[in-house]
């Protein structure tokens, strides 16, 4: 028994966590007041009606039923799967673009103090601009671009907006990481007479890994959110963003239906974080940084 616990501790705790949420949900729905809990005029706990809080099992069951009454309508789970893959693809594109740009910015900023002073405030400021505001801009500017034979599409706009969110943690995290080697190590590289590039590969990049991995994970989560929200702002069909809006319309008659794309969004968020986790596994040796001085 103890052995099983040791081996699967993380998985068991994870499942328990999910089960707790589900049980709390249904217990509150069963015993909570129909009008929710009000303090003064403020509702601090939601209504427990079918419309506000469908049973957890209804949400699951709804996934197995057709999306609509049309004769050739696919099952909801199928539709959500397709939309999730579509959004995940865009988020992944955004992540890659964001990581590349973030790393380049960090390299430039770590190499030249003046670049850091000039760029860092703008990098931070960039994240205070609401996505809704930049979506139409990206779309308009993009439509005026023509790169080779490639015509700018709405997908490109969504990927760029996802990248806009994803680059930030990478730029900040990588900058800290690249500046993290201590003086002894830097002087050693200088004594070896190797240049900027080889110092980067031998010392700076490996020692930035412990700072980079959390940044990459954050970037993955941001890219997913960015992609879903940008789909709504750009009005791109086929992904989870648009699906959330479409299905929300059905909430009054089919309250379990809007939850389907939400599960999809949770799913791709987990996949994105997991993928970065795998990356972390591959880079494991470099996480020892900072132990020996």
């Amino acid at each position, binding site marked *: 028994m103890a052995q099983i616990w040791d081996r699967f501790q993380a998985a068991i705790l994870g499942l328990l966590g999910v089960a707790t949420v589900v049980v709390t949900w249904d217990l509150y729905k069963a015993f909570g007041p129909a009008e929710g809990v009000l303090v003064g005029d403020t509702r601090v706990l939601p209504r427990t009606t079918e419309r506000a809080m469908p049973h957890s099992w209804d949400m699951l069951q709804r996934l197995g039923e057709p999306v609509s009454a049309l004769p050739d309508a696919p099952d909801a789970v199928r539709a959500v799967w397709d939309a999730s893959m579509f959004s995940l693809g865009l988020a992944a594109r955004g992540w890659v673009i964001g990581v590349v740009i973030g790393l380049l910015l960090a390299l430039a900023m770590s190499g030249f103090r003046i670049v850091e002073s000039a760029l860092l405030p703008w990098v931070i400021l960039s994240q205070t601009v609401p996505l809704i505001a930049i979506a139409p801009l990206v779309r308009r500017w993009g439509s005026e671009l023509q790169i080779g034979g490639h015509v700018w599409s709405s997908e490109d706009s969504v990927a760029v907006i996802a990248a806009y969110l994803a680059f930030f943690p990478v730029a900040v995290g990588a900058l800290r990481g690249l500046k993290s080697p*201590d003086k*002894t*190590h830097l*002087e*050693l590289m*200088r*004594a*070896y*007479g*190797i240049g900027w590039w*080889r110092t980067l590969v*031998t*010392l700076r990049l*490996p020692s930035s890994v412990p700072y980079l991995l959390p940044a990459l994970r954050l970037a993955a989560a941001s890219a997913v959110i960015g992609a879903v929200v940008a789909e709504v702002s750009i009005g791109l069909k086929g992904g989870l963003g648009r699906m959330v809006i479409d299905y929300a319309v059905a909430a009054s008659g089919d309250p379990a239906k809007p939850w389907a794309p939400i599960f999809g969004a949770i799913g791709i968020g987990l996949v994105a974080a997991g993928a970065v986790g795998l990356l972390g596994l591959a880079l494991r*040796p*470099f*996480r*020892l*940084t*900072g*132990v*020996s*001085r």
Partner: protein
Amino acid sequence: MNQHASQHAIAVAGVRRVFGKGRKQVIALEDVDLVVGAGEFVSLIGPSGCGKSTLLRLVADLDTATAGTLEIFGKPARRARLDQDYGIAFQQAGLLPWRTVAGNVELPLKLHGVASAQRKARVAELLDLVGLSDFAKNHPDQLSGGMQQRVAIARALAESPRLLLMDEPFGALDEITRERMQNELVRICAETGAAVLFVTHSIPEAVFLSDRVVVMSPRPGRITGVVDVRADGLAGAHDRTERARDEEGFFRAVAEVRGLLHGAPVATVAADGLEK
């Protein structure tokens, strides 16, 4: 070992190093002359702020002198650094934590394009020299401070330099480990025949290891005297054993260095021992 005896390992003349400007100006080194012969072990000793580390960093070309000349084996310091004429070890071992012990020792060889088979043979040789053959595959965080420092010394010796620069390499170790490391260093230096410039603030350490001890004083940092330990009756640094710590000459040299450090007049100072 004496094939380069005609050529000095280090020749420093009229060196001055000033940090900062205007009223915040600090003179770290003033009018420093020093010659270290090939195969000679010279220690720099003095209180904090006397510029001993600065002098070593100038020799290593990790810093640039404001005035004066530095020559390493007859070349400017920068050329000597690029030619890998010296090996260097700091107070912090400075091992790369993600590389194994063997990987750390191998690093300078790898960076300078030595072939893989040769690297392997050299690393085995070096780890044997510092007595860490069994730990080749370990990572630095699995080693004690003394062992890490031995790896750092092996790394400094990787390219068989004729000059070793050491900046308080045993400063962070406990007294017992420290004496053992000193014994090892004497043996290693005898085996490699390299000249050593060694920065420390331990008087017994400086005396035990060196042929000559250079005493420095702060504000401005300058050389106040040189004690030739051999003149006090100790064997040359390469022929020393741990018994030297109990010899009369050892105590005489310690007293002499202490006298210079505390400014007390000492009758028989070999202070003009800047053999040119």
